């Protein structure tokens, strides 16, 4: 079957009097299981690797870059504006401002769309957007009581005052505070919520394992065939050069069935094998106004078109962002599901993807929760995450958005399609979707 043969609802999504915004190219470091080769680095080190990779890939003169934006989630307190620290170290001009954004798993998406906004409004012509996450090292803090005591101690002047502060010390002050992958508003971990979501949509354990296996198999194939061209090698100081993602591990359904539930014990369905894993990695992308790119002699890869952010109940609909965002962004762009040649959805959990499928395929859900007359329908599986997804490639929270867009852009080029749809869910019950249009060859 040749989907690209099908006539499109629209020939292009270009709008009169609005600047076309293009992706010149994008790269990412290999995504690694946390605690492996990047474990001794700091987040800005990994981000810097993505930025130098981008400079190398695009040969963009650093002085033309107007602005740099990075997404990140679990922040290293020493480099809270990680975009600036990474840019300075990567050899960008110290005259180029940089800021960091955070929006959970769609932080890089937010970095990109912020850049789109800057270009569309005429404030900038050239923006670098990216994201980084280093789960190998997370800020474990002293308890609030201990912090207070240490700050009080700092202020104490005399020996007497110091002794009186120290006398307030109790052993339990030493219990550390760990950042959790849990919703602040509900205290529920994301895996727990995913398990409940899967149960609400009656997604079975087997379906989840099968989907995860698909993701790993496709990723392995894409890796073997050299399709993951956004990956740039990273020479880690003191270690070998890392050239590929290390989380891809196609297993068998039998092996996967042996795993115990990871969150809702003992009867849940979400396991380590059908969830995305804690990942280290960074991504970066060069975005320009079309006329600027052409003037500089670039052949862009894709247009960034309409996008949409949505949000809903962080308790029971935490991971349904794609379901809500997809019909909205399609309507905004004037497209239908049939127009999309490449779907790139963020895979937080197999159960989450399959629950979104069931929701998208349900008139009842559309009518009762989305205020729509009919369902949007299922994305055809043969066009869906064909080169693997977050389950297999990995999911550095702050960096995934750029990977999704580059996967869509590269797939459109490779597979010959015109429109790609990127969608992702994020903590806080938020979601994002964006249309990527292939740049004519």
């Amino acid at each position, binding site marked *: 079957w040749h989907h690209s043969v099908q006539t499109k609802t629209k020939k292009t999504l270009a709008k009169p009097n609005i600047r076309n915004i293009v992706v010149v190219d994008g790269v990412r470091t290999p995504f690694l299981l946390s605690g492996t080769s990047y474990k001794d680095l700091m987040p800005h080190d990994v981000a810097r690797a993505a930025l130098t990779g981008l400079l190398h890939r695009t040969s963009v003169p650093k002085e033309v870059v107007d602005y740099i934006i990075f997404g990140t989630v679990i922040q290293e307190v020493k480099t809270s504006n990680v975009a600036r620290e990474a840019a300075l170290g990567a050899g960008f001009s110290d005259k180029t401002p940089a800021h960091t954004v955070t929006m959970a798993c769609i932080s890089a998406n937010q970095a990109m769309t912020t850049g789109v906004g800057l270009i569309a409004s005429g404030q900038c012509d050239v923006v670098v957007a990216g994201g980084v996450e280093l789960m190998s090292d997370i800020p474990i803090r002293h308890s609030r009581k201990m912090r207070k005591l240490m700050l009080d101690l700092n202020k104490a002047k005399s020996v007497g005052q110091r002794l009186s502060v120290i006398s307030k010390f109790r052993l339990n002050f030493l219990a550390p505070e760990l950042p959790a992958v849990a919703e*602040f*508003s*509900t*205290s529920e971990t994301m895996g*727990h919520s995913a398990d*409940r*979501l899967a*149960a*609400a*949509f*009656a997604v079975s354990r087997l379906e989840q394992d099968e989907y995860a296996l698909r993701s790993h198999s496709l990723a392995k194939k894409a890796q073997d065939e050299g399709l993951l061209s956004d990956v740039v090698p990273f020479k880690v100081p003191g270690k070998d050069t890392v050239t590929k993602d290390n989380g891809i591990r196609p297993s068998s359904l039998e092996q996967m069935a042996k795993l115990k539930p990871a969150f*809702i014990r003992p*009867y849940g369905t979400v396991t380590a094998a059908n969830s995305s894993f804690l990942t280290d990695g960074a991504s970066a992308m060069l975005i320009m106004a079309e006329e600027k790119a052409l003037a500089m002699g670039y052949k862009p890869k894709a247009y960034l078109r309409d996008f949409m952010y949505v949000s809903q*109940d962080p*308790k*029971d*609909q935490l991971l349904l962002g794609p379901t809500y965002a997809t019909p909205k962004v399609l309507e905004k762009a004037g497209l239908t599901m049939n127009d999309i040649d490449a779907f790139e959805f963020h895979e937080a959990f197999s159960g989450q993807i399959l*629950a979104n499928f*069931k*929701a998208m395929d*349900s008139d*009842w*859900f559309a009518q*009762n*929760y989305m205020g729509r007359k009919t369902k949007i329908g299922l994305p055809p599986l043969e066009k869906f995450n064909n080169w693997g997804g977050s389950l297999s490639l990995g999911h550095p929270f702050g960096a995934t958005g750029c990977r999704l867009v580059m996967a869509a852009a590269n797939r459109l080029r490779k597979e010959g399609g015109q429109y790609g749809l990127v969608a992702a869910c994020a903590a806080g019950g938020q979601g994002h979707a964006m249309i990527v249009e292939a740049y004519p060859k």
Partner: protein
Amino acid sequence: MVACRAIGILGRFSAFRILRSRGYICRNFTESSALLTRTHINYGVKGDVAVIRINSPNSKVNTLNKELHSEFIEVMNEIWASDQIRSAVLISSKPGCFIAGADINMLAACKTPQEVTQISQEAQRTFEKLEKSTKPVVAILQSHGDTLAVSCQYRIATKDRKTVLGTPEVLLGILPGAGGTQRLPKMVGVPAAFDMMLTGRNIRADRAKKMGLVDQLVEPLGPGLKPPEERTIEYLEEVAITFAKGLADKKISPKRDKGLVEKLTAYAMTIPFVRQQVYKKVEEKVRKQTKGLYPAPLKIIDVVKTGIEQGSDAGYLSESQKFGELAMTKESKALMGLYHGQVLCKKNKFGAPQKDVKHLAILGAGLMGAGIAQVSVDKGLKTLLKDATLTGLGRGQQQVFKGLNDKVKKKALTSFERDSIFSNLTGQLDYQGFEKADMVIEAVFEDLSLKHRVLKEVEAVIPDHCVFASNTSALPISEIAAVSKRPEKVIGMHYFSPVDKMQLLEIITTEKTSKDTSASAVAVGLKQGKVIIVVKDGPGFYTTRCLAPMMSEVIRILQEGVDPKKLDSLTTSFGFPVGAATLVDEVGVDVAKHVAEDLGKAFGERFGGGNPELLTQMVSKGFLGRKSGKGFYIYQEGVKNKNLNSDMDSILASLKIPPKSEVSSDEDIQFRLVTSFVNEAVMCLQEGILATPAEGDIGAVFGLGFPPCLGGPFCFVDLYGAQKLVDRLKKYEAAYGKQFTPCQLLADHANSPNKKFYQ
């Protein structure tokens, strides 16, 4: 060593609160209507698991009545006989409800203890069979219902705040009569079982899991391909089936891993000496707290003891017999009467109001105003809290925050929920936003001219449909409404302090109050979680009016030289939760003085008795009660045992009157207080201030702490006998005069013994 540890566990009983009227509630008992045969239970078979669904028709909940019971036996017999079925799952088809305890109408219909005993024994037999079932039975609990579930081999409960487990029987003056007294100690250990059965407290799902009361928790699901509640039940069933299969295949053990403390306790309880100490301690505690007024707790201890010391046969027999005896006691009838009354006072007899109150405005951020705000914001009402000063407003806002934050500490709310609830409150010093208010409740100082002023100010800014409610304990509403442009929208809403703890709301309607205004006020009160009585306007309405003659008598008794401590102990031993002298301190001496003066003017000699000069002198010396640190007692932060205020001696001495020996025995003193209260309550019914005796009982028990074991003044007249009360009143009338003249309605009841307030 271990023995010491076990005795240390006795410390847990310090948390006991047995039938303190403030927290007094009964939730789990429900009534059911007449039912058809074999309509409560059906079952289907999935693989080798029978799924038994309980669904009583025409009722919101399932109650354990005779029909349900016999159908259950039939179904279980079929399941036990079937070769195909290896295990079973028990579930209620009603979302959020399992089996809500015994049917109290069924008990009430019994004439003799033997009949009740028989009911108990039938249930015991069934549940024992269930307990010994060779095919494992998994129960799914979505809200209440321990009786049946405790006999199952495995229990799965939904993990949400609606799920509360417990044995509330004690609150109705009975005991868990279907084997609960025998099974619970084995399941959760003796100390925890005593705690549950003697307090009737609600146990939340996560706590129940820790205690071993349930084996697994399942969190409710959100929206999916069908309504969340429906899918959650399906999911529970799916989960339960996997456990039922696991149990049948012996892949899952129904035995729970006990913690170290639990194991030590269990071990300690095997030592007879330790057990005796536990019984003794618990008994002492119960005697101290119930003052011998409630028979059920002691019988529960007795039954548990019998089961442990003499074996379960003796235990079951004792349980059923004591159950029968308790069901016939006055106390149990009084408590069940209160239950019925409470159900009645949780309904809006005026129907739904034309416009739902969504925006509430409260004037005055004092204790009452802030208390009203607290119980409103957590129900989702957008609330404006207005005060005249920033300091007053800040204090009120802090009170609301603290109330919510205390719930966070008790894990009843998350900090996020607290913040989001608190955002419903807007504090302000002006009338901004009042144009959107659907109801204004004023809780300013009890001063008629001040109330007039705020009413006029408010009426200038509120929309036409807005209700104006006055929170006052004694000022007649019609007098407040006199300056209103729209008296049909004016109503009284008398809250009790502390508003977040006291369940009662007394709503006062004037001749002019419209039905819709009443409907609105009741709807808001119900939303705030209140038990509501609606009374006619008049000096002191109902509650304050009943209290006034009793307070007057308190003063006389003190003048006659009875020590406040002695007076307190006499009143508490009669069943009042707070002693009479302490009550004056708690209410505030200035408030009491105010009320005494107002009502004294309105009712004249009948409200005489003690010399109000006592209160006047106390106020002039600044002895305003707890709030000023001194009243009859001295109050100090952090000091638990309060001492008498010795400065009161000279005041009391100056007003001393000689006691009359013929009416000054301890019992007479108690009855002088109670009869003056009861007489006034009956007079309120006679004058039409009260619409029903049930409201009178609920108002007295929930608002004023009338002894719950007596069921309220009207129930008390019925159970004690009108004639005996009239005789007492006449005796006191002879000694003191008009204050004790029995009212006509009471006299009528005395004259015709068939006349009862409750038929």
